[in-house]
């Protein structure tokens, strides 16, 4: 069973925007989409490491701010002809709070 850590309120992220959670293993981008779904991905584009959290969010995808790769928020997979995948992490919303997979703490601090 997954343990969860409460990281923030859903309303701390505007709709169609991303924000960052710092972990010892690097930054995680948390996205809130137009329909209030929340996704967590490594904040590094698989192409050249661009900060995905700063990209334009459209539908359930984000366009990397550096070179416009479009990353699917569910799979982390680059869309279209591009290749590469950003790691995704378990995240959910409960009672207006964003909960992130607590294993991110342990796994990353051990690494």
């Amino acid at each position, binding site marked *: 069973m997954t343990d969860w850590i409460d990281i923030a309120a859903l309303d701390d992220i505007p709709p*169609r925007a991303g924000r960052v959670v710092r972990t010892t293993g690097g930054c995680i981008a948390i996205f809130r*989409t*137009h329909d209030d*779904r929340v996704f967590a991905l490594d904040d590094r584009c698989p192409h050249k490491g661009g900060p995905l959290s700063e990209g*334009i969010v*459209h539908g359930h995808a984000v366009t990397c701010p550096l070179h416009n790769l479009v990353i699917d928020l569910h799979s982390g997979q680059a869309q279209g002809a591009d290749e590469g995948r950003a790691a995704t992490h378990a995240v959910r919303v409960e009672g207006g709070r964003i909960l992130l997979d607590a294993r991110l703490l342990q796994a990353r601090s051990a690494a």
Partner: protein
Amino acid sequence: MTERLVIVGAGMASGRMLEELSERAPGEWDVTLFGAEPHGNYNRIMLSPLLAGETTFDEIVTHDADWYRAHAVTCRFGETVTRIDRARKVVVGARGEVPYDKLVIATGSASVRIPVQGNDLPGVVGFRDLADVETMLATAQHPGARAVVIGGGLLGLEAAAALNARGMKVTVLHLMGHLMERQLDASAAYLLQKELEARGIRVLCNAHTQAILGEGRAEAVLTEDGALHPADLVVMAAGIRPETRLAVDAGLRVERGIVVDDHLTTSDPDILALGECAEHSGVVYGLVAPLYDMAVVAARNLAGEAASFAAPEVSTRLKVSAVDLFSAGDLEAGEGAEEIVFRDPARGVYKKLVLRNDRITGILMYGDVSDSAWFFDRLKTGQSIAEMRDVLILGPAGRGAGIDPLAAVAAMPDDAEICGCNGICKGQIVAAIRAGANDLAAVRAATRASASCGGCSGLVEQVLAVTLGDAYAAAEPAGICGCTNLGHDEIRRLIRARELKSIPAVMQEAGWTTSCGCATCRPALNYYLLAEWPLEYRDDPQSRFVNERNHANIQKDGTYSVVPRMWGGITTPAELRAIADAAEKYDVPTIHVTGGQRIDLLGVKRDDLPAIWSDLNAAGLVSGHAYAKGLRTVKTCVGANFCRFGTQDSTGLGIRLEKILWGAWTPHKVKLAVSGCPRNCAEATCKDVGIICTDAGYEVGVAGAAGLELKQTELLAKVTTEQDVIDLTAAFIQLYRENAAYLERPYKWVARVGLDWVRARVVEDAAARKALIERFETSQSVYRADPWARQAQPGMQPVKWAPLADLTLEAAE
């Protein structure tokens, strides 16, 4: 022996359960029914029509005194239940105890009273029961009475529409970005808002209620932006809360609602719960269909049958007369899901289906819900729609029927109107085509069809295709992105002609094929809207590229460059010292002098941006907009002040120009230069606007380039005063702002429209020039401001700039 059944709550769920129980197990239970309201069960979902005056209370009563008598139900209406004593198995009411063998809790839910000052003033009501409706109707009787409805969800909008129908002036304050965000997407919500506004209801989204004001009773609602909304009545419709107090006090398991299993039994085997107060598999239901399902299951269990409740698919309709809206299932376009979007701008229709594995999993319809039952049936049964995928959105009519749009156009009579703006019929277009107009542009020139708002361009093309047959080579769809077939010009024309003032409005009226656009069209629409409606449109940061959202240039390693403005390339020791101090304080690794005569601090960490701006602001430095599709720099030489060849005050003019133009958003970046003599040390002849000073005055050149292409400026005009230069420049830039495509540099735009066309408006027509300057100034009254100063305000920082959370510290423990 009959067993004793006590029911707490005389609402729709328990009413339905009693009906079912009396059929399945007549006489087996000795029933006592508690109800907080002074009367029995009525059809609560008809409160909206009751409020609107479309029905009467007698018509919505479902169980009257005769019914209860005939079914031997002991009624304890208007009596509060104070507690449940589980050890003794009694319910304690205000007028005495009642013992039970089985207890059913059906206490429903209550309106959430948002925690603001004044929420308990007289005149503040929820919208849950008959008493609320009576209070509202009493207020609505006063001529000119005003109501504020807090909450733009299902309930709030029904109340708003009903009060509006009763003649009240109604304002809806909705916390979220669009109405009914749980059931609708932005496109459907746009149509709904438009309809409500057309009825005279004011709708304000992103409205945070701060307090309800009034002496002795509610008089006004104050929102966070400082606006005061007068109100004789305040309706709280910001959500409902399951009424669980009795269950909590009795020690039953309660999460959001009273937790029940598949048999609707609570954590106490002798107590059941159903209706809006119950939580099953983590879900609390608020719609009548699942609540009736619960009622039947509960009755069957009480009658000794084994019955289970299973989570049903639910659908939503808004009970507002003449608003057709249907929402069901999961509307997220998730992984493996695809959207089919259909829009008919002319009829105000929007339909979206979400498909997963060839099955319908979500339905949203606005404006035309005639096929909703057909779609909902397919959603519930989960049948494959693979074979009808292409025509699915057309509903049952799409199956095999004539869906060829060309056939429909061919069948139109000659007097059928194609272009509503200009009143052009099909026959006139066909005549023009027969006379030689063989493409859209030619038809537009010959007939004016599609020349105004452009909404009928597709239809005109279909007439071309039908008339010319194979001879017509349809133009490639020249849409600005994959979301639309419309080009930049057509979109701008539509925004202007139809007065569209939001991104969802454009997407609906222009028939976007996606529900929320993409990274290409959203920044373009955001620009077009702010350029067209500077005073009304609110900039959408989430439709901006990172640099414009963060007011700094992102670098390849994710750091930023910071460039303060140096007006006309002039600086002072104090400014240089402030820049040097900031560079040291924030460990700026690289300082570079730019080609635009200013200083670039490269490698600034994102989190340091507000602080470095604040420091630079303190020294009087503002954003240089080095990141913007907007005015960048005005380069100058030192001119007549120092140079022995200088003819005019080129630095002074450069600074004046920069002070007028800064902060303006443009389709692409704009760079200027002013050279003090024809030797042109400021390199003015490769700028978007370049001014060369001469002994006779000023030569204003435009449309130069020194990027991917190299191009000299072309002379717009020779003038004699600085004010002439400023007027021409402002007018030229405004013309560019109003007419160029997003991301089209001025030199490309001028090449496209022709310098003569530009000169006719900017130079030759004084009235047109004056109007352009006035529109530019209107826009600048909003945008001539330093974004750094705003972002560096302490209030902005935690909201936007800090990480959402920092887990590195916790991990170290």
